[in-house]
């Protein structure tokens, strides 16, 4: 992994879900620079989550090349891609991001259990790093001890953000993490997320159907500008 590489690069990528007639993704070129924070807007069903699965290496494109942090995904085996994802990418989803039977704190340190690299980079220890991040995200230690299933949606999303950030992964991928929050909480959450990503030096790829959020990001894109296949069901 060379520092000079962009965080994500797509070249002539075509992807089709098994059983689907036409491709869902057809992206000739897309690049996310290191340290950049990009907002990617697209309507529901346009293939945003599919794009993120491709970046995560959970699925492979039919054609074309995807390079994540300088590593070409198609050259890695399935296990290596899983390891790569665990070590370098933090995910935040729309809703119910947490493992319901673990406490908030256990959820935050989970990536460190899956990746030695993340654990090593969580200084001084995963637990202390988790508590620090939680503090930055306005979570008190009482909230962290409760089972994830008992937290409010806003608290859950902040725990998810802390989990994505722990161990300073190079890339944070957020899939509509604010859509379940009201306008006020959305703003607070976004500010915290952008601030923490900047502090950790992580690149951020944030997708949403809600264009009103775009103004908060240094750069914004629309999926249909880069994706030639509109994959509306």
């Amino acid at each position, binding site marked *: 992994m060379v520092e000079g590489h962009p965080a994500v690069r797509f070249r002539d990528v075509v992807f089709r879900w*098994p059983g689907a007639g036409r491709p869902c993704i057809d992206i000739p070129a897309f690049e996310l620079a290191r340290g950049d924070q990009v907002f990617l807007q697209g309507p529901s069903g346009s293939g945003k*989550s*599919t794009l*993120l*699965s491709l970046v*995560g290496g*959970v*699925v492979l494109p039919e054609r074309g090349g995807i390079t994540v942090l300088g590593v070409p995904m198609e050259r890695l085996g*399935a*296990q290596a891609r*899983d*390891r790569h*994802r*665990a*070590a370098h990418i933090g*995910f935040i*989803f729309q809703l*119910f*991001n*947490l*493992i*319901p*039977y*673990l406490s908030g704190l*256990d959820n935050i340190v*989970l*990536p460190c*259990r*899956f*990746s*030695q690299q993340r654990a090593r980079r969580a200084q001084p220890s995963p637990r202390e790093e988790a508590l620090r991040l939680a503090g930055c995200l306005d979570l008190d230690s009482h909230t962290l001890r409760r*089972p994830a299933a008992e937290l409010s949606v806003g608290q859950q999303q902040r725990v998810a953000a802390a989990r994505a950030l722990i161990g300073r992964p190079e890339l944070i991928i957020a899939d509509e993490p604010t859509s379940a929050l009201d306008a006020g909480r959305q703003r607070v959450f976004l500010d915290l997320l952008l601030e923490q990503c900047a502090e950790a030096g992580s690149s951020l790829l944030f997708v949403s159907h809600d264009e009103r959020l775009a103004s908060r990001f240094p750069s914004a894109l629309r999926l249909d500008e880069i994706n030639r296949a509109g994959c509306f069901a």
Partner: protein
Amino acid sequence: MRAPLWHLAWRSLANRSLTVALTVLAVAISVAMLLGVERLRQDAREGFARTVSGTDLIVGARSGPVQLLLYSIFHLGDATNNVSWRSLQSIAAHPQVAWLVPLSLGDTHRGFRVVGTSRAFFEHYRHGRGRTLAFEQGRAFDGVFEAVVGAEVAARHGYVPGQRIVVSHGAGGLGSAEHDDRPFTITGVLARSGTPVDRSVLVSLEAIEAIHLNWSGGVRMPGLDLPAERIERFDLTPKAVTAALVGLKSRTAVFSVQRHVNDFRDEPLLAILPGATLQQLWSMLAIAERALLAVSALVVVAGLAALVAVMVAGLNERRRELAILRALGAGPGRIFVLLALESQFIAVLGCATGLALVHTGILVGAPWLEARFGLELQAGWPGSSEWRMLAFVLLAAAVASLVPGWRAWRQSLAEGMTIRI
């Protein structure tokens, strides 16, 4: 990279503790049934085999060999015919016969069998690896109205030497006639032997004869009251007995003496080798044993099916959880292992609980089983066949655990990180 799976499996199970507990119980009950049946089978066999040793032949009226063995030694069922005293005398006089102990059955005392026999019984009856009967208290009977009681009889009714007991005619029970005009004095209590002797009252052959002196057709003849002192003047030699245990001078003669008895001219008799007849009994019971074992095995299959059903049904609710684990870097292989691990954990817990259940069951049920059926259960460390069965169940469980694992693996491959509800 191996550490989190145990942790996750454990926490996930703890989170669904009620469902998990019920599934563990289902597996445990099925395992307990399998092990319980096996334990019962083995201990019954062992108990039976322990009962007769040192006896070369058992002689009775001609019937089935198994039937003769069952009623003469195990007090199960009744004899259809007796052996005349004259024939027995003649067999006892055979040059190869070392000793002969007659047995006269038919009466009871408070549900326990009364066995009329000779004092030679205490000398020649052997159990286990050739052990003789030992007296816990007192001595053998001597006079006509003296009795020796087995350990279980004494324990149940708190009998000690010197106490007087009354014998019932026939099997006893409501309204049956009591030989209450001729009570017996207990002279001895036997130590526990784990044989039907524990549940017997032993008296002399003469006593059996004496209590039936003024009886005819199962009822006492009115107006014929014989005081005990006058009885001694009657000839109390029995006319017939139920069966006899025979010991030979040399075991090599066993077949010739057996032939001699079976070809007896005066009446139809039967001589059996206890060991061989026991084998015959086992082979008769083998089908029933196997059927019982097969049913228990099917119950285990049902238990494991319940386990798989619970885990697979749970997968639907856990889609999101598995998608999150995928996003965190867990490969489909690890998702597979997680689900298989959880299933296997339930199975292991079920087996352990089942084992505990059997052993508590034995501890609680053993006194009752022993008192009621004379079946002595060993609440010991599981034997090799039980370990083998447990290993087999765990192996089957391991195979069953692959099903939820495989389903989860397929699901996580098809859905990736996208959570589709």
